[in-house]
């Protein structure tokens, strides 16, 4: 056992300084933002700091094993995460009508955050050695799996995470070489079935959120409140912002969910367009680094995993930002490394740990 662990570290520590530094920087900025967004709540900020430190360590640890370790255990990881997800559905803790969490005593775990990572890895492991183009059978198996898991999350209900799981899975499938003909055909089916989805798969409040997007002023004090106040917060920040902890929208409770979904609005209000640009630059740097690593990965499994996980990260950022500035409906999506919430935070540290592992391990030559 000890030998095995020491084997892991045989080639020294696997480490990507670009990602490590930029993610550490992002996490630190996140703590600064969260302190203000939580109305200077020290307890929240300290708790989040512990997650950040723990997460950074976790990221380092997760990046040490060889990619083969993840490839070989992908099914086991998926089954464990699926088990936790189902456990949540039966014995989960209900908060505000949503059953998403497992109470572990010291920590409430949002189990959908785990499967968000393990599903793309499993799909990469499942598809990496399939010849191109991917057969219809494999396509259907993958899609069925993706939809089942996404739907379990959707009925929690957690539309945001379910959406992310869905697209993360589809990214891997797409990158693995899903035939264009299939993509075209299924897109057509999807568009045609939109009314059916609208009527049967969306909760009334979710439909309301989508409608609100198109007419936020129809009910500015009701369903349009969040997005109206968010836009006011962002807009009133101006170019330079109102100054740290000076955002009236955030500090006088006009903005909802300042610590989680709408933390970007707080940043935009207090740091202005300049602050937004700085934050987006850090995100951009990480994404470009991921693109580079994906393109230079050692094998198909690594490529698919890095590609899938980085697109997962990218999509999460996009959905959050697009939501708070009012171009997509409010779906409940944290801003990675910035929003409060341990599960989401840790899942991204793990994801980046795996990305670093995939990127830094050279191909082992069999003796």
């Amino acid at each position, binding site marked *: 056992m000890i030998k095995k662990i020491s084997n892991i570290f045989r080639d020294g520590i696997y480490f990507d300084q670009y990602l490590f530094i930029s993610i550490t920087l992002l996490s630190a900025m996140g703590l600064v933002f969260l302190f203000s967004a939580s109305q200077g709540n020290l307890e929240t900020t300290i708790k989040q700091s512990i997650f950040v430190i723990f997460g950074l360590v976790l990221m380092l640890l997760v990046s040490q094993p060889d990619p083969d370790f993840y490839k070989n255990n992908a099914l086991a990881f998926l089954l464990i995460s699926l088990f936790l997800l189902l456990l949540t559905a039966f014995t989960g803790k209900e908060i505000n009508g949503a059953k998403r969490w497992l109470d572990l005593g010291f920590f409430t775990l949002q189990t959908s955050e785990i499967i968000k990572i393990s599903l793309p890895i499993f799909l990469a492991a499942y598809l990496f*050695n399939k*010849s*191109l183009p991917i057969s219809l059978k494999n396509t259907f198996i993958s899609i069925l799996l993706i939809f089942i898991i996404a739907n379990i999350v959707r009925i929690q209900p957690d539309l945001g995470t379910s959406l992310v799981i869905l697209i993360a899975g589809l*990214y891997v499938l*797409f*990158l*693995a*070489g899903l035939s264009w003909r299939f993509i075209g055909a299924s897109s057509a089916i999807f568009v045609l079935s939109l009314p059916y989805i609208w009527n049967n798969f969306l909760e009334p409040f979710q439909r309301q959120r989508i409608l609100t997007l198109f007419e936020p002023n129809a009910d500015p004090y009701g369903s349009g409140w969040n997005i109206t*106040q968010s*836009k*006011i*917060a*962002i*807009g*009133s*920040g*101006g*170019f330079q912002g109102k100054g740290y902890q000076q955002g*009236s*929208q955030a500090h*006088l*409770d*006009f903005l909802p969910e300042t610590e989680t979904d709408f933390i970007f609005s707080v940043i*935009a209000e207090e740091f*202005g*367009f300049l602050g*937004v*640009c700085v934050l*987006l630059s850090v995100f*951009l740097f990480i*994404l470009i680094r991921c*693109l580079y690593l*994906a*393109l230079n990965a050692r094998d*198909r499994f690594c*490529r*698919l995993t890095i*590609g899938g996980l980085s*697109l997962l990260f*990218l*999509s999460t950022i*996009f959905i959050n*930002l*697009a939501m708070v*500035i*009012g*171009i997509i409906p409010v779906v409940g999506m944290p801003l990675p490394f910035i929003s409060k919430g341990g599960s989401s935070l840790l899942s991204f540290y793990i994801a980046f740990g795996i990305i670093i592992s995939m990127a830094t391990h050279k191909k082992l030559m069999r003796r």
Partner: protein
Amino acid sequence: MIDSQERFSEKKNFFNRLILIYVIFAALFILIIYKTYSLQVSSFSDYEIAALKNKTREILIQPSRGIIYDRDGQILVNNVPSYNLIIKPSFISNFENLLDEIKSIVELSEEEIEYARINFQKKASLNRELILKKDLSKEEIAKFEVRSYRFKNVFIEQRYSRQNLYPELFSHAIGYVGNLNNEGLDKVLQDQSLSTKETIFYYSNGFIEGKTGIENIYDDRLRGKYGTKIFEVDATGKLLDELNEIPAVSGNDIKTSLDLESQKVAFKAMNGRRGAIVAVKISTGEIVSYISSPSFSVNKIANGLSENEFKELLDDVNKPFFDRAVQGRYSPASTIKPAIGLFGIENEIIDWDYKINDPGFFILPEDNRIYRGWKKGGHGDINLSNAIIESSNTFFFSLAYQSDINDLTKHLSKFGFGRNVCNDCFLPDIGLLPSPAWKMNTHNFGWFKGDTVNLGVGQGYLSATPIQLAYYAAILANKGTINKFSFVKKDSLEEPDKLISANIDVSDWEKMHESMIGVIDNPKGTAGRLRSLKDYPIAAKSGTVELVSTETKEDYKIIRENEGNRDHAIIIAFGPMPNPEYAVSVVIENGESGGSVAGPVAIAVMNSLIN
């Protein structure tokens, strides 16, 4: 096994697809940056305002209304404090305990407790004050004050009520205040570009405005300007810090021309009878006494009448709300005669020596219709002066008969008939000055000579309000000139408007004054009974308005059984002669005799003004 060829194409395929997604997202991120830019930079000022609006709340501060004084600076209408018991719910943890403690000191009614219980939470969450009890008595205030150290978040707040110190004396002249309706409020606030979210009230009955009289006419001046306190608020509307305050500007006080003493005398002399009194200072046109009777209490109206009390006032047959002084239409009757006489002089139809024989009636040559005088057998040979003194009808029938109706109408208009004679009266009526054109329009009938003859003695279609009669008297007194009447004391004397000129010279005016003095002082004068009531000369002309036309005194005795059929009593007077300072008109409905019923009232007012 995958061969290298396939591996290469797989890799290329992967690159293409990954870059494709990145490119799509790059476009989406440009959209996000563009949208953020447009929110933060292009539309910044809109959102800046929206955020500011969100976090600030403007609370109005009601200004205090101006005080109304009489001409000597005595307060007529004031703001008197009333005391309310206020609590601050946001700082009170145990409301029921506090309520029990307060109940042991100040009695609280079930409704007051109910109201407080219902509103406590809301007021607490918004950091607003709550009125526990209104209008504390002096005893309650004292009882609370000595124990106030026990209550950190309970205090007594002063608010005001509008109070007329002489509530029945000035009910029509000054009028009353009442609640501002929504449109009125919108207008008032719009003038100051304010919104009405919340107000710190100065008056315990909220927003008030002048509803009638001087309170209404000078509402703008009395009202003052609303101030504002600007608070920072959170999303729930809870008040946080006070950011700014623009203090309210109190309304301007108004010094009226009204004379409290003569008003008191006039009110007493009227003694609740139906009628009106208007007295003015001739040199300025200032109204010094103004009574419409019967009256009512303006304070009761302003501070809330019960529905029954209000209905009672509305249904009162004597119509206390009706302002007879500017809205009551009465035939001038014989009081018109000096104006008719002057018309004769002006148009050289007659002169002061011109005499006719008065047999007691006038026969209209056109149709032989008989127009009777008041004295059986007539006044014999009579000139203008005696016709005024004795009030000969025949003389004026005859004079009117010789007059051109259009010229006569024009002449009477100069004396104020058919015109608004007041600058600042509330809803004045202009009476009726008939003319052939008017008759054709309204009655679809031509003007008869007989109509002119009736006009000669102030009967028929002609009607005037008491204030018009006072104006007419003032012009007579001032020899053809007068200022338009007003309720506000004038600081400087204005040059009066010249109204009558042409062929009437000073000696004509003086002769007319002499004749009108004779109405009281001449042994044959119709108002001889007034002689003993004064010790200086007063010019006057009495009138008795026939409501029902009767041929004989016996007939009148029958119809007078019904009080409503009795003649109205009218008098106009000015004095002291020969340099008159005040003019007065008195109308007493169904008073029967101008000289002996309306006359003493006029003399009493005149005496109080002169002494």
